């Protein structure tokens, strides 16, 4: 974990709905592990009392990138910042994905919307290639399909409106794939809470391990404020654990969905 003032290399519209931000962060970039995030302070927002957390998408040399959607005040201001402008970044943060080992379970990645961004490094650094299941509402919600294909992964697209790939939810082809073969597989997922919950249930039913990257509202990002907690099994009972520190990636068997909001 480091705090660094970084310079924007590029910040451009990636699709109709998403932006791709690349920053030069020479000290942070080499430390980044798959599934970790960056806590970004959008410096022109003088009245904001919080940073904004973003999954780290790609790492290249002394730069890293994030994908984001302009949805609130923070991302709106961010979207207007050009190359050369500065941001304050605390990163890399959180406990990320376990990178698959050669000869181990085949990794099946499940992503919803910009959850895809959090999975790129995992796919890139995994010595064993697998399948990426990516879902979204419409065609524009499907991100970085080409990037994953370029890594040699099999990308299976679903959209709710059928405008791209198979029509339906991302869990449909995932379930079909799990039924198709009994080979050892492991699921890795990032996306909306509803999708993660469904993936967790499928993993349990299919008796395959799953690592889920949880997306919770966050304040400090470093474990002090206890905002981003989720209920997790511990000892004989359960406790609230921090998405920013113990997570964002959790073993799906440990999450207590019946208590989670």
């Amino acid at each position, binding site marked *: 974990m480091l705090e660094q003032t970084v310079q924007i290399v590029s910040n451009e519209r990636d699709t109709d709905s998403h932006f791709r931000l690349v920053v030069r962060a020479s000290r942070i970039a080499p430390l980044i592990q798959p599934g970790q995030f960056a806590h970004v302070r959008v410096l022109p927002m003088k009245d904001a009392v*919080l940073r904004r957390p973003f999954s780290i998408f790609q790492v290249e040399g002394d730069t890293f990138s994030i994908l984001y959607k302009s949805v609130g005040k923070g991302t709106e201001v961010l979207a207007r910042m050009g190359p050369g402008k500065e941001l304050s970044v605390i990163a890399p943060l959180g406990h990320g994905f376990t990178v698959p080992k050669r000869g181990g379970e085949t990794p099946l990645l499940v992503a919803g919307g910009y959850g895809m961004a959090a999975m790129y490094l995992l796919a890139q650094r995994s010595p064993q290639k697998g399948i990426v299941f990516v879902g979204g509402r419409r065609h524009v919600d499907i991100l970085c399909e080409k990037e994953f294909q370029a890594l040699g992964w099999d990308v299976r697209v679903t959209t709710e409106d059928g405008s791209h790939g198979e029509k339906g939810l991302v869990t449909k082809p995932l379930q079909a794939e799990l039924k198709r073969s009994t080979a050892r597989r492991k699921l890795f997922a990032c996306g909306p809470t509803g999708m993660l919950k469904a993936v967790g249930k499928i993993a349990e039913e299919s008796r395959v391990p799953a690592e889920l990257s949880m997306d919770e509202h966050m*304040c400090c990002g470093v474990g*002090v404020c206890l905002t981003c907690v989720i209920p997790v099994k511990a000892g004989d009972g359960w406790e*609230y654990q921090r998405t920013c520190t113990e997570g964002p990636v959790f073993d799906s068997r440990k999450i207590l969905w019946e208590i989670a*909001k």
Partner: protein
Amino acid sequence: MNLSVQIGKLTLQNPVMVASGTFGYGVEYAQLLDLNQLGAVVVKGIRLHPVRGNPTPRTVEVASGLINAIGLQGPGVDGFIKKYWPFLKKLKVPTIINIWGTTVDEYAEVARRFDTLGGVGALELNVSCPNIKEGGAQFGTDVKLLSRVVAACRKVTELPLITKMSPNVVSIAPYAKAAEDAGSDALAVTNSYPAMAIDIETRKPKLANVTGGLTGPCLKPIAIKLVWEAAKVVKIPIIGMGGIQNAADAIEFMMAGATAVAVGTANFYEPQTPLQVIAAIREFMQQRDIQDVSEITGSVQTTK
């Protein structure tokens, strides 16, 4: 130039500490800043037993502020001593432990436990958390109960006691006086202000706890006034807090009557804030040839 200040028998190398609940147990921020540069580290509220805390969502950002209802999640006295004390006791700067309970006896028991631990800098009595059903603000908004809590802790420890005052009172004066008379060595002014936010689409409160405590820059003018009022009636030092983002804010608190200050919510977006405040207070003093930081305390001119 002297920046050191006195809180009871505790000497701080400078007047800038961090506010309880915004700095965890210190160790979380150790990679980002040198804790030994601070006036003191103030840890999150601890009661006798572990506390699970409130359901989520626990915080919501509002204009120039943050509403929280964490519910004092924490490891309890034993958990704290095991997990966090080995790190904290090695710091060169004092650790101030924020304590609470649901009964007067529990406050005293927690105080006693930390008294016997050895090496603790001071105890901050949290009698003003708005987010728990029992304990917290119920003690800080009742003069008699407040006196009893402070007196009970005073009886079991000689550690400096800092009473953290609720902002949710008609006048802070009788509470400040009651805490002083019961043996408090200092006051922390102030805690978060009770608040609420509603999602107009779902018509639901934005916090699972429905209400929470407001902190951040929007709280500052309220806190400044409370410090000013409390300073008029007590002789003990006041630690000012509420929305401090920079040295100007800190100096404003000191001019209102604070001997020391604490940076709270600002730590969340800029962990360097306390160190930046210390450096800029020094600069302010140099520019104006102020030899001792205590010259700033209470220097507001309210008469024409």
